[in-house]
């Protein structure tokens, strides 16, 4: 028996395109990314994306255990996506891996693999842990966004950052970054991840039905959304490393 029962809102989007949470169709939820939040991980990131709270830790390249999983000519990239039992807005999630989180682990792994220079670290493993502390639609793309920042923070050689963003279909509208209600009762959800430097797609999933025209519009909108997220990723990294520089300069003034 679910403890909380959510009610479907009467209207997800008004005729003029105002969404249930007051956003315009092409507007993202507020996003904050913080780099290097975990002392003992090689690289880490904390992503606040709307109501999502996601912690990403990256370890490696390190010895691959169990040894039989190691690949001689390239690094083994492993990802674990996990939702905390207290993370959903309604019921408690049964802890541990389930069908959904196993799928998302694979999907995140596949989205990040193409940018990692795996061939440089034969016989080793790179581990990515995506822990969802609070979920509010679009956790996989938020996870990918955070994980690529954490990979950079770990000093693992990568071709560039991967950026994820969802698009959805609500009635006749194609909306950017669907929120919880739109995800639950909308007509479609399409998470996309881009390798932004070249515009290549590393993740593309979709549920719901789209006409050819709708799909084209959705993909374009996702790219526009990713562009904004990519800027935030870059800003987060620069902020952390420029801050280090600033601390040094302040110290210099004290000495003089």
């Amino acid at each position, binding site marked *: 028996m679910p403890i909380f029962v959510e009610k479907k809102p009467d209207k997800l989007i008004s005729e003029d395109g105002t969404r249930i949470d007051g956003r315009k169709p092409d507007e993202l939820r507020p996003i904050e990314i913080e780099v290097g939040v975990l002392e003992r991980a*090689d*690289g880490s990131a904390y992503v606040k994306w709307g109501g999502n709270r996601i912690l990403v830790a990256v370890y*490696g*390249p*390190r*010895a691959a255990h169990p040894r039989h999983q190691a690949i*001689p*000519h390239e690094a083994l990239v492993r990802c674990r996506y996990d939702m905390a039992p207290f993370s959903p807005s309604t019921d408690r999630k049964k802890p541990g891996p389930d069908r959904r989180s196993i799928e998302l682990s694979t999907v995140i792994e596949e989205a990040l693999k193409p*940018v990692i*220079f795996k061939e*440089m*670290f*034969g*016989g*080793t493993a790179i581990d990515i842990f995506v822990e969802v502390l609070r979920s509010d639609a679009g956790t996989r793309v938020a996870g990918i966004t955070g994980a690529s920042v954490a990979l*950079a*923070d*770990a*000093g*693992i*050689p*990568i*071709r*560039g*950052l991967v950026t994820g963003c969802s698009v959805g279909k609500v009635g006749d509208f194609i909306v950017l970054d669907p929120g919880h209600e739109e995800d639950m009762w909308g007509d479609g959800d399409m998470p996309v991840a881009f*390798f*932004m*430097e*070249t515009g290549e797609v590393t993740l593309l999933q979709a549920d719901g039905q789209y006409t050819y025209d709708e799909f084209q519009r959705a993909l374009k909108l996702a790219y526009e959304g990713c562009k904004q997220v990519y800027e935030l990723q*870059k800003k987060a*990294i*620069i902020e952390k*490393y*420029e801050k*280090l*520089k600033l*601390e*040094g*300069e302040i*110290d*210099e003034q004290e*000495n003089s």
Partner: protein
Amino acid sequence: MTQEVKVFVKDRQLVLPGQVLAEGALKAGPHVYKDGSKLRSMKIGLASIRENTVSIIPLRGGYFPRVGDIIVGKVIDADSRHLLLDIKSPMPGILPIKGGTRIKIGDTVKARIKSFDGISHPILTIRGPKLGKVRNAVIFDVEPMKIPRIIGRKGSMINMMKEIVGCEIEVGQNGKVIVYSKDPAKLRLIEEALRKIEREAHISGLSDKIRNMLEKGVRNANIRRKEA
């Protein structure tokens, strides 16, 4: 036909992975890859442009063995022919031993990487000057990427530290600093200096700051010693 060469970054500018550093007939140095005619960074680091080579001084990253590196490791396992050393790399190093050895499990050993194929265990050797078991020393862990800064240009930084503090210091490329001293005041001072270098590795004029810090520290330590 000569290709047009364009450079988009300044020397010592902070760059991100994937960022286009330059375009045209330039050489890709360490941590830089070629994407068609574009040169892109692989890591978060500082751009470095020397003649026709663009490279990155990375700010983050672990140790990955290279042949010829002097490293410091701890013996974690042993059989009659080999010692297994934890050298803070993805795979432990193997030190083959002929005949007997006095090195036991738990000992710290300074060794050179003799051979490494990038896949299996790096093979180490202790033949060479100043290699072998480390005695009467304290070892500090630092970030491996910061080792070049601790050494300084042609050893300027480390020589300065040795001179001012007055004790022998050696480094392992895998992020280990060996300090041959038992004086707590000296050790404290050196650790403080190492942490400062780690924190501010990418700031210019660091040598002078470390010199000031150490000289001040030595003076203060002397005062403390007199009081005691």
